[in-house]
């Protein structure tokens, strides 16, 4: 049986199709038209597997745009999906930090289930957005700032976490002649502090797994390890943790229903309709 998970995030859209393992995984920019994006990534994933939408037993949508996935059978929050996805690749993990484009979340897990969570979507600090804005101000690509910051020998403390103020502060430090790598290390340190402060409310213990786009930033991971005073782990493709979790939950729900002798109600699966009209 095939299951699909669709994670429509604020910045990127992810789809995976799974049987026992991941058969296809597609990532693309979310853009402004959520429904169109969802259909596009799903179509690509189906092509990769060589299946039609009706061949998928159950589809779970997650992420900030989960409500705009016309072919999904059920919507589940990214909080539950990331937890499920992480539990699959790291069964020992008891804590998840998901650093997304516009928000960040922390989950404490108990036997793979969410026991408590926190979420920040009010303030850009502690999210991918903060790093994007600063990279732009410095004329750098966001994927480059992590490696550059690792060269720092003398971290420069950035006191502002408000994105606008931090941008000003960074520019001022550069003008004072500070080294780029030291400033970047300071920025990563500031975000990691923010994340640490927020997530220490969860009293997380044990192995921490970092997911989401933020997990691709080596500088940030290093700063997080320092703040949490323990190593942090990342899945091989951290951006797919939510979509994988969604597909796994699709499979779980199907199994649970079957055990009760029931079948799940499916959605309208309007994949082609929408692509046709748009």
């Amino acid at each position, binding site marked *: 049986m095939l299951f699909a998970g669709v994670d429509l995030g604020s910045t990127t859209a992810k789809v995976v199709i799974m049987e026992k393992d991941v058969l296809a995984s597609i990532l693309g920019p979310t853009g402004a038209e959520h429904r169109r994006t969802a259909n596009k990534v799903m179509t690509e994933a189906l092509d990769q597997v060589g299946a039609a939408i009706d061949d998928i037993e159950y589809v779970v949508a997650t992420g900030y745009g989960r409500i705009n996935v016309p072919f999904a059978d059920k919507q*589940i929050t990214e*909080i*539950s999906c990331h937890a499920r996805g992480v539990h699959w690749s790291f069964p020992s993990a008891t804590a998840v930090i998901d650093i997304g484009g516009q928000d960040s979340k922390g989950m404490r897990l108990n036997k793979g*289930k969410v026991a408590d969570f926190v979420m920040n*979507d*009010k303030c850009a600090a502690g999210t991918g957005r903060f790093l994007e804005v600063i990279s732009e101000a410095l004329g750098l690509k966001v994927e480059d700032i992590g490696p550059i910051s690792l060269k720092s020998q003398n971290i420069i403390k950035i006191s502002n976490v408000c994105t606008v103020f931090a941008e000003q502060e960074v520019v001022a430090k550069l003008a004072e002649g500070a080294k780029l790598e030291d400033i970047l290390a300071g920025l990563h340190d500031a975000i990691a502090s923010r994340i640490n402060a927020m997530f220490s409310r969860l009293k997380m213990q044990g192995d921490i797994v970092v997911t989401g786009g933020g997990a691709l930033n080596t500088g940030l991971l290093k700063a997080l390890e320092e703040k949490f005073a323990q190593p942090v782990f990342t899945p091989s493709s951290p951006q797919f943790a939510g979509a994988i979790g969604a597909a796994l939950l699709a499979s779980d729900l199907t199994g649970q229903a079957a055990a009760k002798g029931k079948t799940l109600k499916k959605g309208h699966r309007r994949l082609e309709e929408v692509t046709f009209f748009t």
Partner: protein
Amino acid sequence: MVTSENTKMNGLERAKQLSKNRGLRAKELRSQGRKIIGYLCSYAPLEFFTALDLVPHRIMGSVGEPIIKADAYLEPIACPFVRSCLDKALKDDYDFLDGVVFPHSCDNVQHLSSIWNYYLKPELYYFLNVPHMTEPSSFEFFKSELTAFKKYLEDFAGKELTDQALLEAIKLHNKNRALLRELNALRKQDTPLISGAELLQTMVATMVLPADEETGLIESVIEEVKNRPPKDSDEDRPRIMIYGCEIDSPEFMQMVEDSGASVVMDDLCTGTRGYWEGVDETGDPVEAIANRYLDKLRCPRTYRVSPGTHEADIANRFEYLKEYAEEFDVNGAILYIIRYCDTQEFDAPDVRDYLQSIGLPVLHIEDDYTLAGIEGLRTRVQAFVEMIV
């Protein structure tokens, strides 16, 4: 004269109408010569107004409406609910009020009061000092303060407020409180007979009606929901208690219920805090009113003398929440804290820890009252529901 009162509309439909158009009835009554007195927060002694034939009207904000005019008068770090109230007043939404009474419930309300008075120039304006402490001397002081206020109101209304009239008003308000408790109890069933959103609308409606009309409205809502056709069992829906201060619009409750939960109990200023406890009908009525508002009203702005240890202090302050949870078979609690509500913000970690210690999962939300970020809240609430089912 055709008024909204003698139209056929009744029960939940009437509650919905009044909760959306809160000045509707007040304006009608005013055109008939009644005086409408606006008040903020839960500490205004409603019985005084009713006994003097003044119509109490709770000042509320407007969820979802951007704050425009208040910016020129009140800082953005003020409680957003208070800012919303001021904004509405500056947009003339409260032009039907003959007077306003601000009890000193917290710093935010205190600041609002002088600003309101200065720019809106109501005919009657009164700032009522409410002690923060609960020692015997505090009750005595509050009684003196209430007595001074009573005298002021008598002058305004042009008549004497007799103990007899006050006692009758106390009885009427107590009756309404009892009816609201009866209505609230209809949420105890496996499938609650009234949703959290509907109950909130009813509450809001009761706060913009004179006490005698309140009675009829609550009775008609009870009648209506008791006769509803039986619904399917809601056994999969977690039963949620909402803790917070001012939620005066049903959107938040609606969102929680749309997320697959049932709101079955609350500890809110616009909920149980208004009706859980009444005024003692024996003895000196002003003293009884002082006791009810200062002691029985559960707001973190009032300091409770610690019995000794932290554990005893927490039990003393929050054990009623455990009683609520048990009585209403609650599966989880959502703390909806309005940002900049200092006293509530200080209590929140203790409330969270206490509820968790009695085995209740807790979702702690800090929001800016306007629900501008409701999608983010929805994700939290849905995840919370997914977590506890």
